[in-house]
């Protein structure tokens, strides 16, 4: 059973950071996943009073507070206009509206959960995380790191000209995904992230230029094979490694066809 000995509503990030240096203390975000565990938390550090529940936007970027709910992401017109609804499509099937009103982007990204639709879609964007002590780090780098005692303050999405789309396969709507795949084109370079492998999402960038000469049936086949070889999959009760690798190729292929307007 999950228990909490003490609850502190932090009045500043510094206070939250100091408390978080004790490994028995935990920052709480939506607390939806944490509550399912059997952990014994000494002090639950609530950062919901620190004004991190808004999305700020200027000409260059979206700055998304760590406590912004998935429902806010789903309904944010400007963010979804910029991403051609990829963000909305990534979160809209996560459990239900009530869950998405509580789950936060900070909790999803910080947890680097294998099943995360959120991590998958933001990896395909030009995304950075702002850590309280660690500064601003590319999300692709952050996704590879282990959890430490820093605090995720904001997610920053640069308004780089982009084409992006998102697909996922679920055995049943609102269940965990079997596989997730987001694909984007930034400055002519294709990048794709594959999640629910079932490990945490990984990003592949077409730096070797498989698609540089154009996105067509032939180059799509080559690139999907390259991604399938690069990103390992494994089995769990939702699917085998082989099935996931096959899905990755199919979803990526459909994403590329959509981005190129082939179908």
């Amino acid at each position, binding site marked *: 059973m999950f228990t909490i000995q003490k609850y502190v509503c932090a009045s500043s990030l510094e206070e939250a950071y100091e408390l978080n240096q004790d490994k028995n203390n935990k920052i709480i975000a939506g607390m939806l996943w944490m509550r399912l565990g059997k952990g014994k938390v000494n002090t639950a550090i609530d950062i919901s009073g620190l004004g991190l529940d808004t999305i700020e936007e200027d000409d260059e970027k979206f700055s998304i507070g760590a406590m912004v709910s998935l429902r806010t992401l789903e309904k944010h017109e400007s963010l979804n206009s910029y991403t051609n609804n990829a963000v909305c499509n990534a979160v809209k099937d996560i459990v239900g509206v009530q869950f998405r*009103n509580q789950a936060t982007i900070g909790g999803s990204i910080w947890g680097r959960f294998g099943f995360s639709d959120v991590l998958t879609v933001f990896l395909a964007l030009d995304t950075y995380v702002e850590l309280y002590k660690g500064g601003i780090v590319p999300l692709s780098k952050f996704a590879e790191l282990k959890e430490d005692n820093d605090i995720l303050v904001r997610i920053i999405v640069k308004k780089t000209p982009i084409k992006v789309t998102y697909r996922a396969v679920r055995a049943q709507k*609102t269940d965990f995904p079997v596989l997730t795949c987001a694909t984007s084109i930034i400055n002519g370079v294709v990048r794709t992230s594959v999640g629910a492998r079932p490990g945490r999402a990984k990003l592949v960038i077409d730096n070797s230029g498989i698609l540089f000469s154009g996105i067509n049936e032939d180059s799509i086949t080559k690139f999907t094979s390259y991604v399938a070889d690069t990103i390992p999959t494994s089995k769990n009760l939702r699917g085998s490694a082989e099935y996931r690798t096959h899905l990755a190729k199919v979803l990526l292929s459909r994403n590329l066809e959509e981005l190129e307007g082939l179908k």
Partner: protein
Amino acid sequence: MIDITLTLNGKKISDSVEPDSILLDFLRDHKCYSVKRGCETTNCGLCTVLMDDMPVLSCSMLTARANGHKILTLEGLQEEASEFVGFIADQGADQCGFCNPGFVMNTIALLREYPDPTDDEIKSFLAGNLCRCSGYEGQLRGIRNFLNSRSKEAK
């Protein structure tokens, strides 16, 4: 213990709660028995209440987090619910009735956000409310009949 004050169904309530007290338990302790304990894993929607007018799962909300907020349960929304629950009952869609309070609470939230929802919007909004009796079609028909009836009345 933590001292909290919140507004429950229009009444200000002050209490002391344990740090890991869950809103579901707090509400039932305050005689809001419409709030049901279901899966407790955030999947079934039985424990849905409105916090600052947004539907949330009370099984996964710390009571301490509700401090200073407005909480509404079905006990406080009888009049609003009475507008459409008869249409759902007419379809036999309440059957055992255990999921009903959570379903009704989320339907209230749906109709506040989308006064004239499409079938897809209804299905999508209520996807987090599980029912093991009905298969959902009866509930959808009930809401649709309510909306049709309301729209005829408006004409």
